[in-house]
């Protein structure tokens, strides 16, 4: 390999003035044309795309898309899982100064209509038949998009609808143009400037509809540079691209940091094969929401419980040792020789193999972001020896904000602001952010923009405070700060997160604004609670049935009691109910990134909330359901409400 194959540290991150993702992509093809930029597992084999292929595919798609009549300012809906062609298509669209607008692949039709109306997309890029069907429904409803490009031809041969175009045809047309028109390649690369858009993304929308915004080259590159300086990621990281394309993090890390710092992005075969694929190519940079980490922890725990006695003992002993050591280290303890020896033994026998199973053997940066994470989960991954940290970032700040330095890791904060990103707390306790990475405003929404941006300071809507040494602590949504009738101030989300750290609680809604005490509606975790019941010989038929078992009530009550001990007197949860179903994004109760939509929940569960506060010990809830035949029926269910001392 030539010596310029691995450029020195910091060389890539020095973006020249006026860089865009396209110029940096071209730079990569000059520095290391044959290094792998992307891998996708297909037909059981990892297929590789080099940087040379990457640039070529993007330009070929752009040229082909232009030949279809795509104009600057046009938008293109993007529906599908992570695929190389989805990324090529998005960047190709951005090359033509258009706006690729990714949509969460499991979005309901209503949510897609919202995105469509926001950006008036006349074009769409769909992964497969399933997504094409959604787009055709959309077209019936609102008349667009006119041109739908699909990546996977399977099942498409019988479709007669106009405007359906196979991805490879677009690409081939572009390929032909690139060969025939001299200088087209350079012209395309030079077309976007730093101030042009890369993607049209949406805020998560915990309050009201998600708001659209254009993320520009300069925002993303500033974010990448900040992340690099803070050692959030380094050059040449290997990552697994599996989080939704519509989520800011995917644009910021897979696309922008990927190109800016020469990452290798690996795309799993399917979502279901993710854990398998993680083992095959363990990432060095691994960012996930807490939910993913918690799922990993639960899966290890469940499998250990089913294991043999000897293995279980070894696991318990060495994990406990490593977690205690980690806890002590956080308090400044320097490990003794004996402790290090035990830790080493544990690594050999237990911790190493577990890391291997989870695909964490190479993780230099394992980051949890998006929401608060439980202390047990946090300590578990630290104890395993993964460099586990937390971070904070928003769509509006190009996905970055804070991170933790190696050796300065603590569990209750989200770390320190990145270089180039300033944080400020208002008197009301709201977090403000300023920096090159902060967006320019919501798309076609001056009213919301005026509210959110003041003198370059972005009002995050999150409540929190800075500790003396600069660590940021997040408390929850500022708009959600509420008072009980006794005047106690609290953030429901903060208490909910504490509740959710209990492995048996999947989701919770804490109530009590203007009331004399706090109440909670709990959604149990089917996997954990179900396993717990199985082991104890408690039989159940369904989620709803399990949730109402007295034993499960006792289990949840125990968890709440434990939490109550650390909550101030006026903020203890006095009464709670186990709901008969989980909160679900399809029912509008959660956002697609699984944050609570409080208003929807308060409307939907009005009778339950009423019952919690009028002292009844049970409530009947009715749900309207529609059978496949079109007939409707009502399901009645009795939910028990219990007190916590």
């Amino acid at each position, binding site marked *: 390999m030539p010596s310029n194959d691995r450029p020195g540290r910091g060389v890539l991150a020095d973006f020249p003035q006026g860089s865009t993702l396209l110029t940096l992509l071209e730079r990569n093809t000059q520095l290391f044309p044959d290094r792998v930029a992307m891998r996708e597992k297909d037909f059981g084999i990892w297929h590789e795309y080099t940087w040379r292929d990457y640039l070529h595919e993007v330009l070929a798609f752009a040229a082909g898309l232009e030949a279809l009549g795509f104009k600057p300012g046009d938008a293109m809906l993007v529906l599908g899982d992570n695929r190389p062609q989805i990324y090529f298509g998005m960047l190709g669209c951005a090359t033509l100064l258009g706006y690729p607008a990714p949509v969460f692949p499991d979005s309901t039709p209503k949510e897609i209509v919202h995105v469509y109306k926001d950006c008036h997309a006349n074009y769409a890029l769909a992964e497969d038949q399933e997504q094409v069907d959604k787009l055709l429904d959309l077209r019936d409803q609102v008349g667009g998009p006119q041109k739908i490009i699909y990546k996977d031809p399977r099942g498409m041969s019988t479709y007669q609808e106009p405007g359906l175009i196979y991805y490879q045809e677009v690409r081939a047309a572009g390929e032909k143009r690139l060969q025939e028109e001299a200088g087209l390649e350079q012209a395309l690369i030079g077309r976007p400037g730093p101030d042009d858009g890369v993607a049209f993304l949406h805020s998560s929308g915990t309050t009201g509809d998600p708001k659209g915004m254009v993320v520009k080259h300069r925002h993303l590159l500033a974010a990448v540079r900040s992340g690099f300086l803070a050692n959030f990621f380094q050059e040449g990281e290997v990552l697994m691209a599996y989080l939704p394309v519509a989520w800011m993090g995917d644009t910021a890390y897979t696309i922008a940091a990927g190109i800016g710092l020469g990452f290798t992005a690996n795309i799993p075969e*399917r979502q279901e094969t993710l854990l398998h694929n993680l083992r095959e190519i363990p990432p060095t940079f691994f960012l996930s929401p807490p939910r993913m980490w918690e799922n990993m922890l639960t899966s290890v725990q469940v499998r250990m419980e089913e294991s043999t006695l000897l293995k279980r003992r070894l696991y318990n002993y060495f994990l406990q040792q490593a977690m205690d050591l980690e806890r002590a280290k956080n308090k400044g303890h320097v490990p003794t020789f004996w402790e290090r020896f035990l830790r080493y033994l544990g690594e050999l026998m237990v911790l190493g193999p577990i890391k291997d199973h989870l695909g964490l053997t190479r993780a230099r940066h394992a980051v949890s972001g998006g929401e608060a994470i439980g202390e047990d989960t946090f300590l578990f991954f630290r104890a395993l020896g993964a460099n586990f940290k937390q971070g904070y970032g928003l769509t509006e700040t190009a996905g970055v904000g804070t991170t933790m330095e190696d050796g300065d890791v603590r569990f209750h904060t989200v770390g320190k602001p990145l270089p180039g990103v300033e944080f400020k707390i208002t008197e009301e306790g709201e977090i403000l952010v300023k920096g090159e990475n902060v967006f320019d405003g919501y798309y076609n929404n001056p009213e919301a923009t005026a509210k959110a941006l003041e003198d370059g300071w972005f009002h995050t809507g999150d409540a929190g405070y800075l500790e003396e040494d600069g660590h940021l602590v997040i408390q929850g949504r500022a708009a959600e700060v509420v008072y009980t009738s006794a005047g106690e101030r609290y953030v429901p989300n903060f208490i909910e997160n504490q509740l959710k750290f209990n492995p048996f609680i999947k989701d919770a809604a804490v109530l009590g604004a203007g009331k004399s005490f706090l109440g909670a509606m709990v959604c149990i975790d089917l996997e954990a609670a179900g396993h717990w019941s199985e082991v104890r010989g408690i039989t159940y038929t369904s989620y709803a049935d399990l949730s109402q078992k007295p034993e499960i009530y006792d289990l949840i009550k125990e968890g709440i009691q434990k939490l109550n001990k650390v909550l101030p007197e006026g903020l203890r949860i006095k009464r709670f109910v186990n709901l008969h179903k989980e909160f679900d994004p399809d029912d509008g109760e959660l956002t697609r990134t699984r944050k609570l939509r409080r208003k929807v929940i308060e409307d939907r569960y009005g009778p339950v909330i009423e019952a919690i506060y009028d002292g009844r010990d049970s409530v009947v809830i009715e749900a309207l359901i529609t059978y496949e035949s079109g007939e409707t029926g009502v399901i009645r269910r009795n939910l028990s409400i219990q007190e916590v001392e």
Partner: protein
Amino acid sequence: MDKSSSGTEAKPILVCQEVRRWFGGVLALNDVTLEVRHGEIFGLVGPNGSGKTTLVNAIIGFYPPQQGRIIYDNQDITKVRPHKVSPLGIVRTFQNLALFRGMSVLDNILMGRHVFMRPGALRTALYWWLSIKEETANRRVVEEIIDFLQLESVRHDPVDVLPIGLQKRVELARALAAEPRLLILDEPMAGMNVEEKEYMARFVLDIHYERGVTVIMIEHHLDVVTGICDRMAVLNYGAKIAEGPPREVVQDPAVVAAYTGGRRVHAV
């Protein structure tokens, strides 16, 4: 979906002429005559014990008919043995799963490729020189089928730990691996829940459209048959009592009587 695939009458791919088969004193097939056309999905229904599976066994030569003729693609295959039938392009799946338990999904599907493989002691001994190319080519075909039937996540799992719906899909995959021109599915949806059934129906349609395979499907779920079949035939006590487009056949008084014990079926 538009199903007017052929304006002109398609040629038959399989013709059964007065096929008769008995076991001792039991007349399992009584002069069954039917015709399956190129490129159609053909439904074969009938009450339990009406001779559907026997007919399939007669076609593939497992229980050759004692009287009558079976013509496949202008070739008489009445007395052809099963192992000679499958290279002709007729492949079946089984009502009760016949997978190799303990073997992985991948190996089970690869097994379906055996008609295309030329094993031998020398070739195996000199694997790296003589056989690896062949194996790679076969593996590629199998991977395409895995992709087609969305079996990626269980590729390396032993089949006996999979739920029944998935096992049925593996069996379908193995049948496809033999690159059939005529695929006979023996109750592909037995024991499945609604979602699995819908998946399977989708797959059968995809196989039909994308791979141009003619399908004979034995099925009890009348909603499935009327939903996806182009034509169907009904057997009762070994005799064919109706044949034609599903909507007409299910209204046929003889079918109604045989299938529902005399009461009227309401429109399906």
